[in-house]
């Protein structure tokens, strides 16, 4: 065999090998999960719903025909509580089109519902981030340190779980004062124990594993071990919990706003829009129907996506 042919052979081998990499990338945990997620219809429907909502929220000024908080007095010939006017459904062409009607302050309901998506999505996102960060930090430290800290903190979490969550949230808002930001904090506090518990259980399992012992033997500090070794490996169930948590957070925040403790008028928040006209439900049902429908679709999207993620990330649940 000449040296040239050997080189040729080597090159061929190398190309073959690289082709193999191209065709058959090793299936890492996340790629496997992605593949499984794509196979789940419900998860994809959820992802679709949420993507649409995010787009609506980002492009709200382009989609909404009017300003959400500007009364249309004087601009047009519209009345308070006017029913939806849709040209396709037989509304006369000479009247301005209002997909979801006019509210009690002569504002275009459709524009308000569109802008409401911004508030609900942000609220869900920030609430869960807060609960996730604080809750899992508490759970991680409790699980890793054990001892009295673990005992006291986790018993406190049990007490929080001992309350019906909406009632505790109401009490916390009463202490902090009403408003969207305080509602967000209250919901984060009442949902925190879930993250703390899951994180603690994960940490308890992981801290006994060989690679953690190895790091410890190499002289890594507890903080380093916790941040570099334990937490990254404990994240999977928390991702699922967080996705479902966004749904809960949006629903509970809407509930608090409905009770008048969350978002305050004139902010275009779905729960408070619904609350403002709940006594007009018999005369102007459209003002109650659409904000509620928007809440339901958003929550449904996050629930479906959470279910899809759970099936994708937890192979033991695969059936």
């Amino acid at each position, binding site marked *: 065999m000449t040296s040239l042919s050997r080189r040729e052979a080597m090159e061929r081998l190398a190309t073959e090998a690289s082709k193999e990499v191209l065709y058959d990338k090793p299936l890492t945990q996340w790629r496997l999960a992605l593949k499984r997620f794509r196979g789940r219809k*419900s998860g994809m429907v959820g992802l679709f719903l949420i993507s649409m909502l995010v787009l609506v929220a980002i492009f709200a000024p382009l989609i909404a025909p009017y300003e959400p908080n500007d009364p249309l007095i004087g601009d047009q010939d519209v009345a308070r509580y006017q029913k939806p006017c849709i040209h396709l459904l037989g509304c006369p062409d000479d009247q301005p089109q209002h997909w979801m009607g006019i509210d009690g302050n002569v504002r275009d309901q459709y524009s308000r519902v569109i802008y409401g998506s911004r508030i609900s999505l942000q609220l869900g996102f920030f609430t869960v981030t807060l609960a996730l960060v604080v809750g899992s930090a508490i759970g991680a430290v409790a699980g890793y340190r054990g001892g009295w800290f673990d005992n006291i903190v986790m*018993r406190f979490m049990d007490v929080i779980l001992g309350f019906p969550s909406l009632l505790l949230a*109401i009490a916390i808002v009463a202490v902090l004062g009403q408003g969207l930001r305080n509602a967000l904090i209250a919901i984060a506090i009442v949902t925190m124990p879930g993250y703390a518990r899951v994180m603690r259980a994960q940490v308890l399992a992981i801290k006994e594993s060989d690679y953690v012992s190895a790091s410890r033997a190499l002289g890594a500090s507890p903080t380093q071990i916790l941040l570099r070794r334990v937490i990254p490996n404990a994240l999977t169930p928390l991702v699922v919990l967080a996705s479902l948590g966004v749904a809960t957070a949006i629903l509970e925040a809407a509930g608090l706003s409905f009770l008048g403790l969350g978002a305050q008028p004139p902010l275009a928040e779905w729960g408070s829009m619904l609350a403002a006209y709940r006594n007009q439900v018999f005369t102007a049902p459209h003002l109650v129907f659409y904000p*509620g429908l928007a809440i*339901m679709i958003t929550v449904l999207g996050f629930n479906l996506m959470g279910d899809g993620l759970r099936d994708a990330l937890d192979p033991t649940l695969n059936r």
Partner: protein
Amino acid sequence: MLSYITRRVLLAIPVLIGIIVVVFTLVRLIPGDPCTSLLGERATEAACAGFNEANGLDEPIWVQLGIYMKNVVTFDLGESVRFSRPVNQLLIERLPLTTELAMSALALAVAIGIPLGVVAARKHNTAVDTGTMALANVGVSMPVFWLGLMLAYIFALVLRDTPFALPPSGRLSAGVTSVPYFEVWGWQLTEGSFWSKFHEYAANHYILNNLITGQWGVFWDAVKHMILPAAALATIPLSIIARITRSALLEVMGKDYIRTARAKGVREWTVVRSHAFRNALLPVVTIIGLQLGALLGGAVLTETVFNLSGVGRALFDAITGRDYAVVQGFTVIVAAGYVIVNLLVDLSYAYLDPRIRLE
């Protein structure tokens, strides 16, 4: 078994104490003081001092907590400063409504949710399964207050002249009164005694009271008023129960003992009912227990939508109105009820799965 029960009961006590302490602390952290909120902003200092003394608010906070703990144990929950009536009396009037609402909702959720889950599991991967689970997903995502308002709109307005019309608010129609069973049966009760309070409380369960005394008109009226709130409140637990039943049953149906049962020729229905279903019950019972807390939270919203003066709505009013005694008393009762339900769930595990008793 007895030691298992004892251990569970003992474990519930620290949680209850914790709840009492948290409620006590939270209530005192609510900004503003009860004196100015009740006597008005311009109450004189002397008036406030008198008010604080009368309500024990001038004692150090630790003493107040101690007194409060002692009072809870002796079931003396203090007096509502807003209604100028004992909290116990308010509970007698309002708790029965919430209990009836929560129990009706739970009964609906279990009676519909479990069969739906079983059907979905039996028809796994068919249109029936997909359809049921799609509905369950929508149900889980439903804002209770929105559903309540929409139901009220449909049944009280759209269907108002049909036999399906249902009232959108209140417990009984105007002019209808529920006569307590002890009056119907002519019992002589001593005014203000424990038993007279107890019977008053029991008779405030209108559905039950009119069922046992046979006042059918009133009974039917009470049931009609309960349908919409209970349906709204039941939707989320119903969907969750259906989902859990389905997945628990699917898991059990894959077990070897099911194959064995089928192989020896047991009828399919018997396999599902006595081999699979009993073993699938454990997670279902857990979730039913957990849902009760959510039901109580949902009761605040449902009672608001349907103008019902139950515990949930009263608690909300008390929290926003700084009525210390009511907040404390009601929350403790509600939380205690919740802890007891969870205890019952734990005990039912031991009944359903003998292995747990031995741990």
